[in-house]
């Protein structure tokens, strides 16, 4: 069911405070108050300060708009935008809103056009969102029409700044955000370039789902390596990722807003688990084996110590490099209690047919029906329900005490701590006991 179909479970009024009441508990690094996920006024402020603030937002892959006139609908935060390949070969991003009466004029998810025409009064826009034509601008029989001083150039669709790197398109509302590479920080750029080498991508298809949870929870989940070996019983049962594997939980050193969760698969198909670790993992079953092991094959195609990485790029992008199944996940926030996830799965143009099929088979791990994806979606839904409806109001992130940012162990919440430290600063949120 969709979030809007909820029968039982209005958000408790205490969980929907106005901004002025959003004061973080004094032990700020080790706590997350529930209203972070449930306050409508805080959500509105996030749209302004984060998604329309000094950030680069993922909007598309260049492979989706290869030719002049190709376009796709997309989002920056919750705001609908159009991503189009303009006449000069550049990628343009502009709001999907007619400057006249506000109609969302571009209706197809993907397509090809010479211009965009709003169906309501046929105002037309070029591929960069500049207003081209206004019907009856001078009226009929010298009557009516637009004012003499109306200038098309002042009434285009709202245009965003655009940056691309190796086939990935980002957009920003900010004039002051740093250049993309600087925004990402060096280690993130390095991991980014491992997947996006500049080699042409081939889009394999899309998934789209609603997750009935707050958008930040998705970031947290991928900055929470603790859950991976516990929730994901599939990984555990089949010994694919276990607490003893070589792994990393990296948070960018500058802000702590981006992250990389990575692990290295052992050479054996099925990892061995020590007796001591087995006791901690309720879901571990010895002896379960796949009938078709092709699914677990790992073709070593990347220059990286990690066979699996999940990279979180603030504020709206996840880059998935799960062995050989590759994808980007685009977070579209949809109110405090919901997000829409747009998944674009891809390979490379030079993949052999067998490699492409291997990527498709391995795709069973991820997505709304994936062995891992399914469980994440369920868990986050449970958390959102819990924080909306309970009488208590604080989450505790105590693992790996004292560490903020990159962690040396999977049994850590240090990367979440760093993300919220950054978040408090960007949002201008006060901590109890500290001066305003």
């Amino acid at each position: 069911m969709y979030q809007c179909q909820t029968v039982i479970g209005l958000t408790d009024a205490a969980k929907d405070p106005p901004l002025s009441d959003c004061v973080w508990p004094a032990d700020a690094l080790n706590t997350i108050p529930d209203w972070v996920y449930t306050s409508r006024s805080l959500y509105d402020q996030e749209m302004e300060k984060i998604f329309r603030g000094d950030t680069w937002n993922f909007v598309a892959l260049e492979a989706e708009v290869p030719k002049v006139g190709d376009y796709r609908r997309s989002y920056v935060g919750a705001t609908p935008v159009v991503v189009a390949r303009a006449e000069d070969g550049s990628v343009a991003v502009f709001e999907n809103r007619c400057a006249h009466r506000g109609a969302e004029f571009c209706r197809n998810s993907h397509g090809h056009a010479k211009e965009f025409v709003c169906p309501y009064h046929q105002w037309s826009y070029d591929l960069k969102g500049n207003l081209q034509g206004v019907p009856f601008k001078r009226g009929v029989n010298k009557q009516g029409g637009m004012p003499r001083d109306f200038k098309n150039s002042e009434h285009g669709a709202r245009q965003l700044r655009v940056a691309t790197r190796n086939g990935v398109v980002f957009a920003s509302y900010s004039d002051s955000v740093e250049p993309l590479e600087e925004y990402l920080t060096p280690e993130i750029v390095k991991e980014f370039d491992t997947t996006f080498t500049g080699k042409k991508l081939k889009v394999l298809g899309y998934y789209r789902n609603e997750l009935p949870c707050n958008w930040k929870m998705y970031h947290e989940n991928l900055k929470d390596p603790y859950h991976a070996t516990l929730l994901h019983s599939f990984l555990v049962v089949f010994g694919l990722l276990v607490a003893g594997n070589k792994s990393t939980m990296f948070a960018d050193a500058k802000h702590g807003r981006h992250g990389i969760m990575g692990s290295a698969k052992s050479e054996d198909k099925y990892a061995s688990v020590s007796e001591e670790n087995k006791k901690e993992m309720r879901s571990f079953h010895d002896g379960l084996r796949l009938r078709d092991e092709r699914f677990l094959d790992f073709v070593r195609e990347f220059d990286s110590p990690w066979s699996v990485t999940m990279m979180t790029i603030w504020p709206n992008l996840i880059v998935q490099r799960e062995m050989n199944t590759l994808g980007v996940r685009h977070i579209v926030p949809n109110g405090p209690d919901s997000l829409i996830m747009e998944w674009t799965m891809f390979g490379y143009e030079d993949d052999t047919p067998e490699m492409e099929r291997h990527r498709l088979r391995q795709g069973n791990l991820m997505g709304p029906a994936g062995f891992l994806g399914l469980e994440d979606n369920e868990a986050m839904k449970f958390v959102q329900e819990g924080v909306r409806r309970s009488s208590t109001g604080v989450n505790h992130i105590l693992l790996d005490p004292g560490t903020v940012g990159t962690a040396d162990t999977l049994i850590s919440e240090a990367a979440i701590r760093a993300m919220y430290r950054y978040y408090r600063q960007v949002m201008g949120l006060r901590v109890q006991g500290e001066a305003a």
Partner: protein
Amino acid sequence: MTNAYANRPATVDAARAAQLRADIVTFHAEYCAVLDRGDLEQWPLFFTEDALYRITGRDNAERGLPVGLVYCEGRAMMHDRAVAIARTQMFAPRYAMHLLGQVRVEAEGPAGIVAQTPFLLIQTLVEGPSTLHLAACYHDRFVREGQQLLLAERHVVHDTNILANDLAYPA
């Protein structure tokens, strides 16, 4: 637009189509009964050894994009999925109910019987409403092993554009 899933004009005469339809309706009834009662480990038995099973959005299918929410090559992969879901996966308890539309028999030839059947999947969660989870169509190719019909190919192509959270069971 290239549309691999466009229904082609039927090439089976009406009398033969009626016979085949009866067999396929029986097949569907058993298939859906297994899924709707949650007897997942029986599900792969409706397929041939090397069958293809895929669930994908209509936008992918119409644009010739190969990805699947579920993408199983062969009964062994389906078995692995069934075991994983039945024994290892964590998700909230739910009921599934398939409501099938008319079976359309398109063609019969050496490669088997080509047919399409639209369906609605209704999902019910604990304390949740019964909701329309998928509006979809089976695009099938059946073959016979002895007297038994088996699926050599099933593409579940869903119109539903934004899935509600997830899809736990095969459709």
